[in-house]
């Protein structure tokens, strides 16, 4: 199962945070996750976006199939989240998140504004978004340059 560099895979999943911490700790934890993701993903040529809100993580990973699968596997072994649901896997020819390793959509005020439409539809519950919706939302956000790349 070897693949060439041109074989790109995109995975969209969401999962639930397993630990219960206060807001500050949460931000710190997320920073750590981001830092590690950016480090690992930069090395493996995997890019993507991370969204976090109300205890739910949503993530898009893009890159060479083997590298994405390896990264995904590493994420699976992480005890900090659970009930992982893959919403979509698709072969792509072009990355939608080419320039940065991992972004973070953080606290509620930014989200509330940007997610206004989805928020009203879904009671602000990422887990109820489809893979395509999470992907499109994250993509739109990066284009708007609204994401603070906090761990960079």
């Amino acid at each position, binding site marked *: *199962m070897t693949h060439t560099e041109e074989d790109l*895979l995109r*995975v969209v*999943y969401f999962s639930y945070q397993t630990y219960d911490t206060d807001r500050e700790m949460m931000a710190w934890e997320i920073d750590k996750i981001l830092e*590690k993701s950016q480090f*690992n993903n930069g*090395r*493996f040529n995997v890019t993507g976006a991370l969204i976090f809100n109300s205890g739910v993580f949503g993530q898009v990973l893009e890159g060479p*199939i083997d590298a*994405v*699968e*390896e990264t*995904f*596997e*590493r*994420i*699976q*072994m*992480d005890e900090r989240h*659970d009930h*992982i*649901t*893959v919403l979509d*896997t698709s*072969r792509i020819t072009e990355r939608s998140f080419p320039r940065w390793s991992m972004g973070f959509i953080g606290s509620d005020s930014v989200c509330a504004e940007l997610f206004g439409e989805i928020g009203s539809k879904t009671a602000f519950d990422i887990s109820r978004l489809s893979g395509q919706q999470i992907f499109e939302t994250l993509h739109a956000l990066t284009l708007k340059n609204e994401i603070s790349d906090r761990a960079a």
Partner: protein
Amino acid sequence: MSQHHSAVGMTDPSSSAAPSDDPSVEILHGLRDAGVGLVALSANNEISFVNNAFLAAFDLPETECAAVLGKSFQDVCPTCPLPSSTLRRTGDETGTADAASDRTAKIIWSSNSAGGWIGVVTAPPSQAARPALLFEPDELTGLGTRKHLKACFERMSEDADRRDQRIVALFVDLDHFKQVNDTLGHAVGDGLLCKVAERLKKTVRRDDLVARVGGDEFAILVSDRALPAAEDVAGRIIKMISRPFLIDGHQITIGASVGLAARLPNENDPDKMLQRADIALYESKRGGRNQFNWFKDEMFAELEKRREIEIDLRKAVLLDQFKIVFQPQMSFEQQKVSGFEALIRWDHPVRGEVAPLDFLSVAEETGLIVEIGTWVLAEACKTAVTWPEDIAVAVNVSSIQFEDDGFLTAVGSALEKSGLSPHRLELEITETTLLKNDSVVLERMNDLRALGVRISLDDFGIGYSSLNYLRKYPFDKVKIDQSFVREPFADENAHHIVEAVAQLGTAFGMNVLAEGVETVEQLARIRQNGCAAIQGYLIGRPIKPAEIGSFLEVPLPELASLQSPPKEGSTS
């Protein structure tokens, strides 16, 4: 004992999972997993580095390397004299110190420029007396094999006896692995096994041993003072394996069933223990998978009973011991018998009549159900062709039979050989079949319908009973389970459910039948609830094929009560 397996993975799994480009990290990993015991002390005798082999030499395998960092060497190894107390510090001086343990591991100490010490364990007696175990990894996953597990078990037993520990064998079997192999191919299946092996290695504790003992079977030896430690490991394995996998761009979700068995006192051969764990595993599978069970003695007896049934079942097919009986179904609209459900009976010369409940599950587990089901299908069609043209025959199809590659051919052949026209054949499937791969099931249903055969959803109302099934799959008929019809289970709420399902099914163009109707009152109610047909003792018990002719000649006595159906305004 299991150093081959415990290489990496002693710290944060996410950091050790990936190969590192940083040479110093590589070196650190190498030292940590080196076969020789190493320790480094700071000037004030705190441990600044220690590896697995060192801890093992001092019989401290339970301790995590990371957990003793920064601790006083004397606290961690109280039996070992401090180098600073026995050796003078003059430049590169080296010297040996004996650990005062009963097995006297020797350490050569060397002072370093920072004022600390580096200690190397030289030939600890336990290691010298116990040569490295032959390790021939399983080619695919790199895990140990059954052979290696056996060798390790002997060592673990010695250690466990000395340390007053218990050893538990975990037998792990992947749920739905065969489907992955069948639908996505062996390359993906192999990739999955490799990832499963990796997850297992990272999920168990450092001293646990993971081996691959069969196609999709793994065994793990856990040694601990308390048995619940093995339950923790089993629970974590089930959790980790149930998380999604990505293989070759495919998202795959499987599960793991686990059986646990503890080593008996003085048990020195792991085969028996593994066998017990395997029996417990079987219980986990039967219990619905994704769970673990401890072995219990009575499982042996149960297994023995089922084995005997299996042996007899194999003979029964050849010896023609099966019979089919037919239970009538009545349509309200036609006000007469509209069909019969074919039910299998097994008349064993010694056992007598064996209840279907007792042998069908064995037939499913062993796959014999395919052969038996094919026979029932052919026999039912052969019988039905002798009935009047407007009377159908319903045949139960197990999910295993439904998925079998030869099923479509079996149906076609049963129709062809009997000459029964396809629309008179109804195949009854249960939702167990629908729980499998959607698109495969849907395709098969469409293929069957293309033959002209009709399909019913059996036992609706128990289990998941997703209303989505009614929407998603092209059923011709829904059979409401008898528990909604018959007292004492059927209460007021059950009546509402019957009514709702009847309406919904009818709206989807399905014929809704209620099972288990035994009294005239039930019949009247079911009819009022909007069902189109009924089955049950009121209309007739299952009868032999030879009796069907005369049964059809006599009008159903209950029909008298149907001449003026109660309507009470619900005429929608």
